[in-house]
Each structure stands twice: as C-alpha cells, then as structure tokens.
C-alpha cells in the first residue's frame, strides 16, 4: 500500500506505551478516585486507541482522504455516544419518571 516504512524501533516504542497504558489502567482500578475514575480510564483508553490508529494502522503517514475516513468514523462514534447520553442525562427530569 503506502510507501512509508516505519522503523521497527518505533513499533516497539508504541508497544511499550500501550503496555504502560494497560498498567496504569490496572493500577488505577485498585484505587477509588471518585468522579475521576471514569475520566482517567477513558483518557487512557482513548490515548491507546489513538496510538494504534496513528502508528500501527499507518494513518499518521496516509493521505488526507484516509484522515477524513478515520475522522468520520470517530464522528459517527461521537453521534452514538452523545445522543445516547442525551437520554441518560435527562432521565428523571420529569417528576415520577425513572432515573
């Protein structure tokens, strides 16, 4: 496919970063950070996903069209999350309805 060949060392570096991310996730699970729980977990997960997409999937070196395609995938995920959350956040606003 695309002509770009990344050095092997980069892949090992990314792999290391992913392992550290996993370690952080496991470590954080041992402590209760209150409202920060979800924020930390999701941030680590997003960072890991980004590394995989940019480097392992070569999007970093791909054409603008590939960026648009990858970006639209994310945008669609955002639609799913945000509109689903519109339900969860507004539940129980009407007195007597379920939360």
């Amino acid at each position, binding site marked *: 496919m695309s002509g770009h060949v990344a050095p092997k060392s980069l892949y090992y570096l990314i792999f290391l970063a992913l392992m550290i991310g996993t370690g952080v996730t496991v470590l954080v699970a041992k402590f209760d950070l209150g409202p920060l729980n979800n924020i930390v977990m999701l941030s680590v997960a997003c960072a890991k996903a980004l590394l995989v997409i940019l480097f392992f999937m070569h999007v970093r070196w791909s054409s603008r069209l590939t960026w648009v395609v990858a970006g*639209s*995938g994310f945008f*669609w995920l955002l*639609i*799913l999350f945000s*509109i*689903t959350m*519109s*339900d*969860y*956040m*507004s*539940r*129980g*606003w*009407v007195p007597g*309805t*379920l939360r």
Partner: protein
Amino acid sequence: MHGVVMVFFFLIPSIPAVLGNFLVPIMIGAKDLAFPRINLLSWYIYVLGGVFTLFAALSGGVDTGWTFYTPYSTAASNSHVMSAALGVFITGFSSILTGLNFIVTIHRMRAPGMTWFRLPLFIWAHYATSLIMILGTPVIAITVLMVAAERALHLGIFDPALGGDPVLFQHLFWFYSHPAVYIMILPAMGVISEIVQAFSRKNIFGYSFIAFSSLAIAVIGFFVWGHHLFVAGQSVYAGLIFSFISFLVAIPSAIKVFNWTATIYKGSVSLDSPMLYAFGFIGLFTIGGLTGLVLATMGIDIHVHDTYFVVAHFHYIMVGGAIMGYLGGLHYWWPKMTGKLYSEAWSKFSALIVFVGFNLTFFPQFIAGYIGMPRRYHAYPPEFQVLNVLSSAGASILAVGYIIPLIYFMYSLVAGEKAANDPWGSRGLEWEIPSPPPTENFTVTPVVTEGTHQYVHPSQEVGVA
C-alpha cells in the same frame, strides 16, 4: 427466526449482492468491482454466518426475536441465542466488505467522463447504502458480541443486577438497526429511479435532488434510532428530539416519491412488469412511510406501540418497498443478467397477484393494531378473527405471487427466447453491451460524454410526427 433470516440474510444483502455486485461496475464502465476477491470473501463469510444461524434454527430456534433484547437474551432465554448472534456477527463482516468494495469502486473505477453527476441514480443509492454499511455494521457486531460476553462470562453490561442497563442495549442495537432499514430500502429506491425513467421514456425529474436525498436519508437515518425506545424507559426529552428528527427523515423520502411521480407525469408510460412493480413500490412505500410518521409521534406511539399497526407499517416498507424494488429490479435486469427473456404475460399477472396478496395480508393488520391487537401473541380475542382470516388469506395469495416468478424465471433459463442487448429500449452503459455481459463487461473501456440516461420524449424524437 423469521426476523433474523429475513433481515440479516435476505433484505440487507438482496439488492446490493444480487443486483449491485453485477450492475455497479457495469453502470460506471468498469470491468469488475475494485476488489473481486474481497467480493468473493464476503460471499463465503455470508455463507459461514448463515451456517451458524441455520444451526440455531435446526437445533430448536432462538426465541428472542431478531432484536435480541436484553435482559431476556442475556439472563433468561435458554434458546440458541449464542449461535444466532454469532451468525449475525459474522454476516456483518460480509456487509462491511460489500460496502467497502462499492465505495472504492465508485470512487476509483469510473470510466473516463463518468463524473459524479453523470452517475446513474442506482449508483448514488448504493453509495449511500455502502456508507451506512460501513459506519453502522461494526456497532451491531460489537453489540451482539457484548450480549454473548454477558451471557457467557457474566460481564455486567446490560443486566441491572450486574450494574448494567438493558436500555443501553436498545440504544446500541437501534443505532445500527434503524439505519439498516435504509440499507434495505435505499437500493430499492435506486432500482425504482432506473425503472421509472426507462418505462416513462423520460429523464428523471430533479436528478441531483434524488441523488442527495439518498445521502440525506443515509445521514439523518443515523439520528433517529430513539423512536424505537419511546416506551422503553428512555427519557421523554431524548424522545422529543428523536421524534422531531424522525419527522425530518420523511423529507428526503418524500422528495424521491414526488420526483418519481413528476418523472412519470406526461411520460410515455409502458406498463411492463418492472414498471408494475415500481408502481407498487411507490404506492406501498408511501403508505409505509406515512404510517411511520404516525409512529414517530410520541403520544400516538404509546397507543399503537407493540401492536399489529407496527407490524403492518414495517412490512409496508420492507415487503411493499424493499421486496417490490428487488422484484422490479430482478425483472428489469433479468434479460441482461441471463441473456434470456421471460414470459411478459405471466410476469404482469404475478406482479398483480403480489400487489393484491400483499395488501390483503398487511392492510387488515393496520386496523387490527389500531383497535388494540398486540404483536407477538399466537392467540387473540374473537373480535380480531375476521381481520386475521383476511390477513392469512392474503399471505397465501402473496406466496403464489412469489412462486410464479420462480417458475417462469427458471423456465426462461431453459427455454427462454434470447434477449437483445437492450430489450426495454433503455439507456445506460449496461444496455450497450451484450446480454449476458462478457466476463470483463467491456471489450473497450467506454468514454462517457453525457449523463447516462438520455431519454428523449417521443414527441421530441427526430422523425416522429
């Protein structure tokens, strides 16, 4: 099981796989799809998914319905949920690969001169469908995988006892499955756009409106899923938004219906069998679409939710729309695909039988549902007896209407007359090559100099008095 098989193994792949794989390359002047081997792979994957689902069917079936609603599917059902869900999961990949193949083909393989706004509307419809296939199908795949994970490993995703939320399943499920309705209907709309032009001998009225309305349906279709959750415990405020957006999706659908009607208006209409199916589609889809607006209205939905009104509504879209389009397309391109002509008299007769049988089957269900007959029960109070008898009688007639084409299509393969290149007098690249087309479609790559369908009204034809 009826739902699983019909939705995932018939309605979704029918037009894209049978007609799309054949016509998409020909219509844009290409030798084949961009990835012929991936095309074959998607067929193998489809068969593999089918094997799992068939196993579920033969070993006792699955009692969750095609929707696999939690917590029943995860915590209660002891039927073959796992194999049916796995079948759906696997078949999803077949759908994704087909969508990917169409998008790459349409972007990269168009013949010289085949600009975006010279593309046949069938292609626009398949392009929009492919977008939904790629953006939506991964979500259903992950969702059924979550069901499997909760069933097998007791991970708390949907079960409240484990900290999950059953309504979350419905959100994830319908995020794909509502757009999936448009995967079924958009290709049929593409077929109708082609047939209406060919049998009215007129160029389509409002080409770009129809092209963009396909994309609009594909995009807006992703924002309306919550109208399936009005009474599922979803917040009423979210329901309001979903209700409003659901009304919006009627606009591009109406654009198509009005533009087809305007195309037929003052055309030189010939009532060959594909056109009969197209007429059936336009009428039945309109009824199905308008009753969709009834269901999108929150207050009325509470009254008719989970009644036969809903069953009638979506069958008007699925059967009256998608299958009418499929049959219309099959009749229109059969001579091109096989090189053989079928009996026109029999095909007109069967189109009529399908139309009558269909309406007799499903129209009484609107009435039964509106006066309160719930879905998913095998028994009903005596006041629904007449309507149910009518509906069953219609189903038998409809079955006859489906069997007759099977017979004359088979017969045409054996003893049918040889079809000319362009038996209908249509326009378009597919009609300029032999029937059936040679292996690589075109011996010389065509150069396109004008919109693919240049129909001239008979009164404007040179030499016609």
